[in-house]
């Protein structure tokens, strides 16, 4: 049996106290132990960006962290973006309306990446969006609608701002 540790993490505003094997990645912990399977695993070595989450408000690849390293930290996954079960976040609405999902596999990583990007830069240029999502691979190869959706989301958010998702603010852990 491999070595384990007890950790406390806050994911999408919910506090979890869990025991984890020390070698388990944060991505597997989120999916298998917390059951939050919205975070997708594509390459599992830091290239595809599908597993992007926000850690204390900063985007990070959850396959490149150990779950033990998240002890005491706050995480936002794709499940935490919508304000409630019946309402989509404007970013998600923009993706639906502009057909920015396509097959949907890369979407969770792109949405979390864009939550950070639009927080820091509410009115990005197309070039800034393209650079911002350059670490997210879409194998449908149709970045066009993703970029359109991101720019549309920026407009929607400027017109009618919504509260930031829980766990998306920049935070210095205690």
């Amino acid at each position, binding site marked *: 049996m491999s*070595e384990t540790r007890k950790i406390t993490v806050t994911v999408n505003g919910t506090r979890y106290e869990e025991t984890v094997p020390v*070698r388990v990645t944060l991505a*597997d912990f989120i999916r298998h132990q917390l059951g939050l399977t919205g975070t997708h695993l594509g390459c*599992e*070595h830091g290239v595809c960006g599908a597993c992007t989450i926000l850690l204390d408000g900063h985007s*990070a690849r959850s396959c490149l962290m*150990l779950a033990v390293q998240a002890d005491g930290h706050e995480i936002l996954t794709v499940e935490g973006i919508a304000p409630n079960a019946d309402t989509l976040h404007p970013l998600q609405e923009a993706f639906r309306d502009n057909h920015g999902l396509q097959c949907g596999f890369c979407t969770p990583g792109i949405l979390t990446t864009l939550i950070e990007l639009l927080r820091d830069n509410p009115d990005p240029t197309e070039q800034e969006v*393209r650079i911002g999502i*350059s*670490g997210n691979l879409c194998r449908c190869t149709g970045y066009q609608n993703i970029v359109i959706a991101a720019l549309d989301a920026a407009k929607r958010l400027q017109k009618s701002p919504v509260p930031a998702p829980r766990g998306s603010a920049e935070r210095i852990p205690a």
Partner: protein
Amino acid sequence: MKPPPFSYHDPRTVADAVSLLGSLENAKLLAGGQSLMPMLNMRFVLPDHIIDLNRVEGLSYIRANGALEIGAMTRQREIEFSDAVRERSPLMHEAIRQVGHRQTRNRGTLGGSLCHLDPAAELVTLAAAFDAKVTVAGKSGTRSIDFASFPVAYMTPAIEPDELVTGATFPCWPKGHGYAFIEFSRRHGDFAIVSAAVLIEEDSSGKVTRASVTLGGMGPAPVRAREVEKALIGEVIEEKRMREICESLRKCEAIEDIHAPASYRQQLATVLPRRALLKAHERIAEGKRA
């Protein structure tokens, strides 16, 4: 793909980390994890112990004195958004934005990049360009290593198995100097096939008085183009003369890999420094006009 089994240690002080490093067999230091974690996931490395530096106090800082002193665990994001770096070391500011992606800069660290010593890494090229000094801590205290003697072989830094890097010092160039960091890669955020870092100073008549020209991605370690640096002294930077001077860089040894043959890298070695020199010169002129 999952990391192999290991024991996990998360020391809080440099002294504890050094002592663990000295006492544990087959231990690996974990910094930002942007290189070690993929290697663990793919089981290219099989350590018995992981010593996580993320909770060690006092390794994350950017201090601007005569030079920029940067802690080993300073995230690349912090370098990117540091006012001190932008003002005192615009070359570093320009280069850091070309390191990977936002998601990797949020985790990746200065020390991790220097120790991993990827030949194409921007921070490694910068350390050569600035003649940085790397500070390492070991059992018998700390010592400083000139970056010129830091790489000893492909991805192998000159640090002992029981030492760890605690930071690096990057000398600052005087206000009004010229700079440019230009790299060629197939897509934004990819490793550079070749990169060029240029720093210059000019006198009032526009003649170069001091130059640093560095090529990354050519071989196992960044190459300082000393001959070109010498040839630039007293020259006024303009296209034709730079083309002549930089042509000599075609003779640089270059690696050949899946991304490009050696001859392609050698071609880039003549082109990128020239473009960087012209841009650096233009920036000095812009600064004078402002």
